């Protein structure tokens, strides 16, 4: 009989090392290398010019596999957001706000929204990318400063 105490329920995570999930794989390495340099990298289709989500391997429009990493301008606006008051883990400080931003290039990215009172953040607010470590012992991530 297992001696594990299941009475409160246990947090079973995926991982910790899963290629393509938690770990970068060749198609996403350029994004995380950019984060380490302090540059927000997205993909661009060399054939049709469409900007694409960092993970893409084929262009979602013309299906070309000739994609290149390009540095995003790092500016955009909030498409939607949510301020979290109940965190997945009690050790996390609340509140904090995550959202989806639409970059000027037309690519949407998920990230932390900073620099403005949570209650004052609104859809359509303009944002600029920055790089910050959000948690002790973890590397910098792109975060979005709300104007």
């Amino acid at each position, binding site marked *: 009989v297992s001696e594990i105490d299941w009475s409160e*329920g246990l947090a079973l*995570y995926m991982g910790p090392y899963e290629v393509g999930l938690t770990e970068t794989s060749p198609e996403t390495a350029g994004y995380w290398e950019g984060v380490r340099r302090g540059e927000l990298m997205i993909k661009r289709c060399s054939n049709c010019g469409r900007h694409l*989500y960092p993970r893409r391997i084929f262009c979602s429009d013309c299906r070309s596999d000739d994609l290149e990493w390009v540095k995003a301008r790092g500016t955009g606006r909030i498409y*939607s957001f*949510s301020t979290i008051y*109940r965190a*997945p883990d009690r050790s996390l400080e609340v509140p*904090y706000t995550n959202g989806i931003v639409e970059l000027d290039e037309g690519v949407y990215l998920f990230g932390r929204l900073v620099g403005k009172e949570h209650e004052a953040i609104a859809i359509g607010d303009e944002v600029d990318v920055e790089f910050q470590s*959000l948690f002790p012992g973890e590397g910098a991530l792109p975060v979005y400063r709300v104007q």
Partner: protein
Amino acid sequence: MSDRGAALRNAAAVTALGMHVVGPGDDRISSLELQLRACVDAMNQAGLDRRDIGAVFTSRAPMSYTAMEWNMRIVNELKIVPRLSSEITVHGAGALGTWQYAAMAVANGLIDYALCCSGCMGRRWVDLVKINAAVEADLQFEQPYRPTTPSFYALWAQRYIHEFGASREDLAQVAVENRRWAVRHPNASMRPKGEITVQDVIDSPMIASPLQLLDCAAWYDGGFGSAVIITNAERAESTDKPIFISGFGQCTTHEWITDRMALWGIEPAVEPNLTTTGAKVASQQAYEMAGFGPEDIDLAQTSAPFTFLNMMMLEDLGFCEKGGGPRFVREGGIDFESGLPFNTNGGYLSFGQAPNGMHMAVEALQQLRGEALGKQVEGAKRALVHFHGGPAAAHSVVVVSNEEGLK
């Protein structure tokens, strides 16, 4: 309206419903036992031997029981030798998706009887709050920011409110109506808490803006195991209270919510959006197959774990126009006494969300058989069932009927 899929209209039926429900005070069992007990119950009711079962379809593996291929576990334990079997892995939509594959298999004469099962002991084994966000999140591009499941759905909610102006009171009314059904259902999680008011919802703690506590589903404290036997309409005619599968549809738009915004050029995302879900496409397909529309539905059961999503589903499932949800609710569209019977066991908000649970589908079957455990909708003939999973990522819709001789 086209009639795509019309050859499958009422071509299959549910002829047995097996159940095993573990409530808050009951002993903990494994999710494997939960589903097996439901499967055996269904086979007993249908009078079938394991050799009669030609197909086994399951939902994805329960979060509380580790298995790479869940259908293999079920087949292995029951010593069934299916000629067609799979996990249906379209997130939470897969549990209802099992009926769709079963219907296709029996309607085409490929097999005689299909067994479909689902269920999970959920929080009795695992911390669902911690793990569910990790299941819903893109682990590389979203999870590093510590999202929660409500906060993903909140992105839809925030945008929906922004574009269509649902008021705090409109959204709260959805929770109030769901609760009114729940207090009359013996298995509903929130039954002991009694009815609630709009003000109760408005006063409840903020979870992930704009969602407050009473905007959110409660995890069902136990397990809801169920299994059905599906056979063709001809065989079903000689069984007791068959429920015919009139039409069905399915639609998947994304795996993770941020990637939903990289989808365009196809319904329901002709333009990138977080306001219209795949339930619109899935329900249109189901209605086309069934040959009738939302105006002919006597009761509807959705898998919406948040108030705003119930409102969006009323739109996407065709009960009102896009953006018309707030007004529909305000004008009594889902009023417990006089509106569309909607989530008649209390829904995810007040019955509770049993992970991998088929409670909404079971409720529809029981209503149409005149065997509702809560308030019976008198004379109900046609029901719509909607299941979904992921952050509104994958949707299954099935419309069922108790009318005989439909074919």
